[in-house]
């Protein structure tokens, strides 16, 4: 919303610099986004009158002018514009002037002739893009006057952004009212116009109010014999400066009243109203209306309309109808000022997808007392500017005037909330400045809320008003003196934090991908049905993710397309799945994605690619953070390579997957074949009960190490070998490590060699070889019998 300083001064005699006004409003909760002072950078440009215009002796397209600038000595100026003649008044930049473009005017010789100034176009003055010719000023412009004054460019425009609670400041009066409170200056009121005129309006028209709940007050005045035409300069000027296009004098006046006192109005062509009367009612189902923006609207009974005897003529509070609008042929004007239910207006505007300056204000609440004021002000303006004859009186359908809203403010409560000790009298003064009615009884203040302050309906709202006016900056700074119970991080919070740190240490970069996924992701990446958004921004963001895999694969792919092949990414985030009743069930997951070398490739190490076991190792370590043992089995995830994937479980619970991405998802040759992902349910993992850890005594006796190389059929499982080793090793087998796997040259091609390091130790004695050998023999025997393995020579 734009606010003019000169317009504010209709109400308040404020003389502080514009920046100070802006700062005060900002601190009080009314944000000034910009201050425009168009004349600020225009100096030494005056009104000049062209005395003579001759052809330049040395140039066809230039003219040589003498210009009177009010100094008594006419200036000689060379000009290239085509549109001026002797007698015209034009903006004249004097020597020394700097134009908004930064161009400085100096005495110059142009094609051999001296020129002492410049005649200006609108563009050169920085007021529009029009550069077709000089800006020819009206004949009554005063020669020699500063152009800033002549063109009204000394005015200041504030661009203001208003929070949704402050419907009362959506006008010049409203802003002036807050300024009067902030600067403690008196607010001038326009003298109230009387509804005087010829013939009683009640004999000429009527208003039937069918829906007093949706329209608590509807007022109308009639002005006859209007000559609708162009608005006078001052009115056009004010409207233009606040960004409203001038239409005709009557429409301009209704807009002017809205911007002036904040009450939206509408004007009907009285002669086009069937039955010459107004009915305020709900729309009938399917009823149609062509609104002023030339769109045909279909209405429904949730909407309030203003109708004549036959049909809707306006969508109440939102927009008028095309057919009954005021045009230059209109003679008799019916003015409407009313109050509508904010919720009804908002729903209607939303349903029809049409927000107007009017609906915007009605949604935020208007001043019900303004109805007659707006009507009388508009009627007088029409009379003055468009020559109409107002009918006497006004129609005021106002079945139930609301009582004054009264709220109790306890001054002790002010102190308790704000932490400042204001005296009751001080509080009273502040409230009076804001035009509240105040009755004080000791520490209790009964506050009457003026009808324009719809945002005030409880004590806390009054406390805010006190604080706002007192100034937040004057509230002291303390720390809360309260004891709060210790609350420790949850197991999930701890696990997420440790997992992140661990993965960063392992060279992984954290990514954050959107929780939205496209509707069109490959079905194999769907984990159950996703939850769709009702109003997505695009098809690319139509569903909520059910797994982090798609985002990870997408991230890897996009990086590879930027020629980045060494990637290790992780993400922790929510996934969303519908529960049995369709509501959202959320869980936190971890996702890993990588391709390229798994080790630091440098001057000493050559490249070792990522593989399934590296990722298995990482996941196992993350399990150890809980601590818990994760188990791995062959997996069946459709988005992973059918052979190169494992399922991750804990107990009987499936926690995730790890594997090479399915070749089917390798959409481009640029993508390496060995790219991997893993996904783990952190919510479930964090829920694992960590086993209680008790200290084991540090061994007192030495260990004996035995190595065992076994040739195992390739189909055999290490797990089976381990189980046998553990069985046969018994309680003295302290540790079994797999330190090598070999297949290839020198070995049966159907077998691989597993090299195991066995550590034996007893708690109470030094072991002897004789105790160990039978156990090792038993291991070999069982491995041979059960697993068709054999000892490698």
């Amino acid at each position: 919303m734009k606010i003019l300083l000169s317009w504010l001064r209709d109400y308040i005699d404020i003389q502080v610099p514009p920046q100070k006004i802006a700062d005060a409003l900002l601190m009080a909760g009314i944000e000034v986004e910009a201050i425009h002072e168009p004349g600020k950078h225009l100096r030494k440009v005056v009104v000049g009158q062209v005395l003579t215009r001759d052809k330049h002796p040395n140039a066809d397209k230039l003219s040589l002018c003498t210009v009177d600038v009010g100094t008594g000595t006419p200036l000689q100026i060379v000009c290239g514009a085509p549109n001026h003649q002797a007698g015209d008044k034009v903006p004249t930049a004097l020597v020394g002037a700097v134009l908004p473009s930064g161009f400085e005017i100096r005495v110059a010789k142009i094609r051999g002739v001296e020129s002492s100034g410049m005649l200006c176009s609108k563009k050169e003055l920085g007021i529009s893009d029009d550069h077709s010719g000089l800006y020819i000023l009206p004949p009554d412009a005063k020669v020699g006057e500063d152009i800033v004054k002549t063109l009204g460019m000394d005015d200041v425009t504030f661009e203001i952004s208003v929070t949704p609670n402050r419907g009362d400041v959506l006008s010049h009066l409203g802003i002036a009212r807050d300024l009067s409170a902030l600067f403690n200056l008196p607010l001038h009121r326009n003298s109230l116009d009387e509804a005087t005129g010829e013939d009683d309006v009640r004999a000429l028209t009527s208003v039937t109010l069918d829906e007093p709940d949706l329209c608590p007050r509807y007022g109308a005045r009639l002005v006859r014999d209007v000559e609708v035409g162009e608005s006078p300069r001052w009115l056009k000027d004010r409207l233009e400066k606040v960004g409203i296009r001038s239409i005709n004098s009557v429409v301009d006046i209704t807009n002017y009243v809205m911007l002036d006192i904040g009450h939206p109005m509408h004007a009907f062509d009285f002669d086009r109203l069937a039955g010459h009367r107004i009915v305020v009612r709900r729309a009938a189902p399917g009823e149609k209306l062509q609104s002023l923006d030339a769109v045909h609207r279909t209405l429904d009974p949730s909407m309030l309309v203003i109708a004549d005897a036959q049909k809707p003529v306006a969508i109440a509070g939102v927009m008028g109808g095309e057919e009954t609008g005021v045009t230059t042929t209109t003679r008799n004007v019916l003015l409407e000022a009313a109050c509508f239910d904010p919720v009804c207006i908002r729903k209607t505007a939303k349903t029809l997808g049409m927000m107007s300056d009017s609906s915007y204000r009605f949604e935020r609440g208007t001043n019900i007392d303004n109805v007659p004021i707006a009507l009388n002000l508009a009627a007088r303006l029409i009379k003055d500017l468009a020559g109409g004859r107002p009918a006497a009186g006004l129609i005021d359908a106002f079945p139930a005037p609301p009582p004054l809203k009264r709220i109790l403010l306890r001054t002790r409560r002010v102190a308790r909330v704000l932490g400042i000790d204001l005296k009751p009298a001080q509080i009273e003064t502040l409230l009076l400045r804001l035009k509240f009615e105040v009755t004080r009884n000791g520490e209790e203040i009964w506050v009457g809320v003026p009808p324009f302050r719809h945002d005030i309906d409880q004590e806390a709202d009054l406390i805010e008003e006190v604080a706002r006016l007192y100034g937040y900056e004057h509230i002291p700074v303390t720390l809360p003196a309260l004891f709060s119970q210790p609350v420790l991080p949850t197991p999930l919070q701890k696990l997420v934090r440790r997992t992140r740190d661990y993965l960063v240490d392992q060279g992984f970069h954290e990514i954050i991908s959107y929780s939205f996924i496209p509707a069109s992701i490959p079905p194999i990446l769907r984990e159950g049905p996703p939850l769709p958004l009702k109003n997505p921004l695009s098809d690319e963001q139509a569903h909520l993710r059910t797994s982090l895999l798609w985002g990870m694969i997408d991230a890897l792919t996009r990086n590879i397309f930027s020629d980045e092949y060494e990637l290790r990414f992780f993400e922790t985030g929510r996934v969303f799945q519908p529960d049995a009743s369709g509501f959202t069930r959320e869980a936190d997951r971890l996702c890993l994605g990588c391709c390229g070398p798994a080790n630091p490739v440098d001057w000493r190490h050559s490249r070792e690619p990522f593989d399934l076991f590296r990722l298995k190792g990482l996941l196992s370590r993350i399990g150890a953070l809980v601590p818990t043992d994760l188990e791995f089995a062959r997996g069946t995830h459709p988005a992973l390579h059918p052979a190169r994937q494992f399922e991750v479980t804990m107990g009987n619970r499936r926690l995730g997957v790890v594997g090479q991405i399915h070749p089917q998802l390798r959409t481009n040759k640029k993508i390496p074949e060995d790219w991997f992902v893993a996904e783990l349910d952190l919510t479930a993992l964090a829920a694992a009960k960590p086993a209680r850890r008790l200290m084991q005594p540090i061994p007192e006796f030495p260990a004996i190490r035995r190595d065992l190389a076994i040739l195992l059929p390739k189909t055999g499982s290490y797990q089976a070998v381990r189980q046998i080793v553990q069985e046969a090793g018994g309680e003295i087998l302290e540790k079994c490590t797999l330190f090598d796997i070999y297949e290839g040259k020198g070995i049966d091609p159907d077998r691989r060699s597993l090299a195991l390091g066995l550590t034996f130790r007893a708690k109470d004695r030094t072991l002897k070889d004789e105790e160990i050998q039978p156990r090792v023999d038993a291991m070999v025997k069982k491995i041979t019998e059960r697993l068709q393995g054999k000892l490698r020579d």
Partner: protein
Amino acid sequence: MSDQSEILWNQFEEERRQAASSKDAEALRVKYLGKKGPVSALLKNLGALPPDQRKAAGEAINRLKARLEESVEALMQEWSGREEEAKLKTDLPDPSLPGTALPLGTLHPVTQIGLEVAAIFVSMGFFLAEGPEAEDEYYNFEALNVPKHHPARDMQDTFYLENGQVLRTQTSPVQIRTMETIKPPFKMVALGKVYRRDSDITHSPMFSQMEGLVVGENVTMADLKGTLAAFAEKMFGKRLTRFRASYFPFTEPSAEMDVQCIFCEGKGCRVCKNTGWMEILGCGMVNPRVFEAVKYDPEKYTGFAFGMGIERMAMQRFGIHDIRLLFNSDVRFLRQF
């Protein structure tokens, strides 16, 4: 000492000073203390002395011998030590060759700032709460004093799910969920993702917020100012802060906190749009209506709440101009943090 011993010692001393290796020291030992050396010769000659002088001369020679032995040993130690040291210093590695550990990864800049903000509040006694990202409308709006069809809903363009839930537009529903489960007094913060239907260079449809709530019997707006100013000082350094009036349906009075621009120190620049201030967070005293919604007694308890966007702080801290860079997972971007 006899003259002979004296001469011998001086001669030894002379030669000892010339010694420049453990080999030289060994040669000295052989020369002076060996079987064919002067000490042996002197001892052999003892027999030639009159018996009454023998004892004294013998003692003198032995003393000389002991001194020589001690001195040679010290020389030996000294040189072998130096030689060991010199030997270790051959084959010097080039300190400019790069080390070979795996490079560290990075935490996302938004995570980094989120953790930093959380750590500040946790150090002031706040605990970290969490809540769902897909919320019931009640928690996201009604319980926070934003009725249906209220213009305040325009402040946040909302994503709706087909099942009737919304994606939370703010972390404030965690306030409600926390108050429904615990009793005051407490101090909590909640960090998490929020969603608004808005997408351009400074707006992302998904971003992160940190929410805070303090409830007790005598919590005041002065406490709000003190707590948030203390946070700002830790987060942005010693800089001016200001609180100005604002509007949020769930706080009354409401305020915005600005911090003096970290780029121009308040002089005005492009980043702060020439205002000299950066908007950091919205805050206010909890609206009694919110307390009523969670069945806290608004007469007994007061409290303050605040909320801030993490991305904006990350963008300011790291000089990131386009919010979309945070979410497109480009390793060339991520690596820098």
